[in-house]
C-alpha cells in the first residue's frame, strides 16, 4: 500500500491504484479541478499545473477552494 495525506487525512492506495498525478487524484476524489488550488508538501500548485504534477508515496496534499466569506 501507498498513502497520501489529503487535507489532513491519510488515504491508502494499493500500489497499482495510486494516483500518478494531482489531476488523477482529483478525479478519484470527484473534485472539479477548475475550482481548486493545491499545495503538495507545502509547494503551491495552480490549477493549470495539475496534470504535470506527479505524486509520490507519503506526500501531504492540501486542496483548497473559495467559499463564501466576509
Amino acid at each position, binding site marked *: 500500500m501507498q498513502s497520501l495525506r489529503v487535507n489532513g*487525512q491519510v488515504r491508502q492506495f494499493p500500489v497499482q491504484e495510486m494516483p500518478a498525478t494531482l489531476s488523477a487524484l482529483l478525479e478519484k476524489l470527484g473534485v*472539479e479541478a477548475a*475550482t481548486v488550488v493545491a499545495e503538495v508538501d507545502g509547494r503551491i500548485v*495552480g490549477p493549470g499545473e495539475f496534470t504535470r504534477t506527479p505524486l509520490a508515496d507519503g506526500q501531504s496534499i492540501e*486542496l483548497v477552494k*473559495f*467559499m*463564501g*466569506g466576509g
Partner: protein
Amino acid sequence: MSKLAIAGREFASRLLLGTGKFASPQAMADALAASGAEIVTVALRRVDIDNPQDDTLRHIDRNRFLLLPNTSGARTAEEAVRLSRLARAATGINWVKLEVTPDPYYLLPDPVETLKAAETLVKEGFVVLPYINADPILARRLQDIGTATVMPLGSPIGSNQGLRTRAALEIIIEQSHVPVVVDAGLGLPSHAAEAMEIGADAVLINTAIATAAEPVEMAAAFRLAVEAGRKAYLSGPRAPTDKAEASSPLTGFLRD
C-alpha cells in the same frame, strides 16, 4: 460623485460585500446584484472531500465583481501569508483582504501579526487591504509600509453593534492618505450611513445583509444608505450645537 480609488482602480460603488452566511448561492448572487457592489470578499478553505461540488465562485460573475480573497481563519502572520499566496495562485489576482484573528470569541485582529504579514505581502507585490482594530497608530504604520487601504472595525465581526469605535475612526479618517474602509459590525443601513457621513471612503457589509429576512431588500437599503452618507459628507454637514438655533426668522412676529 467622485469614485473610490484603490491601488489605481476606480469603483463607482463604495459598498463592499462579503459572501458568507447566505442561505443559498442564489440568494447571495441576488443580493450582490441589488447592492451595486463591485468588490466582493471570499474565503479560502479546505475542499470538503465528501461534498466537493459546493461551489460559491460559480455564482459570482468575475467580469462584474472584483474578487477580494480574505485570509480569514489565519491566526498568525505566517498562516495569512500562506493563504494569500494560495488565493493568488487560484485567482491570478493579487488583491487580498488581510485578516489575522487569533481570538475566537471577539475575532479581534492581532495588530502585531497583521503588520508583520502586511510587510511581507506588500514586498511580494500584493495589494493589501488589512482588517484592523480602530487603532490610528497602526493605521498609519500600515499605510506607511504601503497597504492599499486600511479597514478598521466598527465593532466585532457579525455583532451588528454599529460604530462603537467612532472616535478612533474619526482620527484614522483624518490622518489617512489611503482609503478607509469601515469593516465589521455594521448591522443597519444607518450605521453605514454614519460611517460615510464622518468621511469613511467605503464600508464592507456581510452579516447584516446575508442574515436579514430579505437579503435583497437589505442590500438595496445599504446601497442607498452608503450613497446618502457619502453625499451628506460631501455636502459639509454642520456641527451639533448645545442650544437651539431658530430655522425661521426671529423678526416680524404677530405681536406688539
